[in-house]
């Protein structure tokens, strides 16, 4: 089942990139997708039936909107720090605990953190994420954990776990 999911996703991807609906092109795409699925199928989607639950898709849309908004804010934040004559930075690496269990959810959370204002995920060891922060706003672990992971963690938990 997992292999089939990867196959279908790669096929959609191929059709979008080539955008040519002739028989030879679709056949070539099928062969390429089959090879991809055979090699990488076992790494992804441990439970494909999650795809069929509409509630998860709803939360995914909520997450996506939050994520895009955070991205845009992040850009203005970096632009402000770069262009400000005094360069207001106070960098450091902080440790943040995550409650997410699955690898996929953790990867998504790490990627989201990297794209949000002022933070980059440096490493994940066990439950702990190490995050470089360009301007440390708080010294209290509970407070900065909430500032960094924010709403992402709860949304990702709802659609990916």
């Amino acid at each position: 089942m997992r292999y089939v999911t990867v196959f279908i996703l790669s096929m959609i991807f191929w059709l979008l990139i080539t955008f040519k609906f002739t028989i030879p092109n679709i056949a070539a795409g099928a062969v390429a997708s089959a090879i991809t699925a055979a090699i990488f199928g076992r790494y992804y989607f441990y439970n494909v039936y999650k795809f069929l639950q509409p509630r998860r898709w709803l939360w995914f849309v909520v997450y996506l909107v939050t994520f895009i908004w955070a991205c845009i804010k992040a850009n203005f934040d970096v632009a402000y720090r770069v262009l400000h004559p005094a360069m207001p930075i106070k960098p450091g690496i902080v440790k943040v605990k995550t409650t997410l269990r699955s690898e996929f959810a953790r990867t998504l959370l790490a990627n989201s953190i990297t794209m949000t204002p002022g933070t980059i995920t440096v490493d994940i060891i066990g439950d702990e994420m190490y995050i470089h922060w360009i301007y440390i706003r708080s010294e209290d672990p509970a407070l900065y954990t909430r500032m960094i992971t924010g709403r992402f963690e709860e949304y990702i938990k709802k659609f990916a776990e």
Partner: protein
Amino acid sequence: MNDMAAIILISVGVLFNIFGCIGLIRLPDMYNRLQAATKCVTLGCCSILLGVLVHFGIGSAGFRALVAIPILFFTATVAAHALARGAYHFGTKMDKRSVKDDYREAVK
């Protein structure tokens, strides 16, 4: 109308790319520069790609631009993580203004 929107999107993209490049020069150490490089440059490129989509409309070129956006997001974030981690393990020092380093104990 479409051309106008495309020009605005591409200009915004180029502007943010320039901010990212200024950040690369002005910010003090490797990790801070990475922040400018990933954030500004990624969204700048996405904006340019959206401009391409608006300009060419829904079609072969437009869809390719659209597909490139999620790929760009995933590769840029993973690359930033790999670069930061690699630099830390290689021993790149953090700037003097840094106030905290929780990662040091974990690496030992």
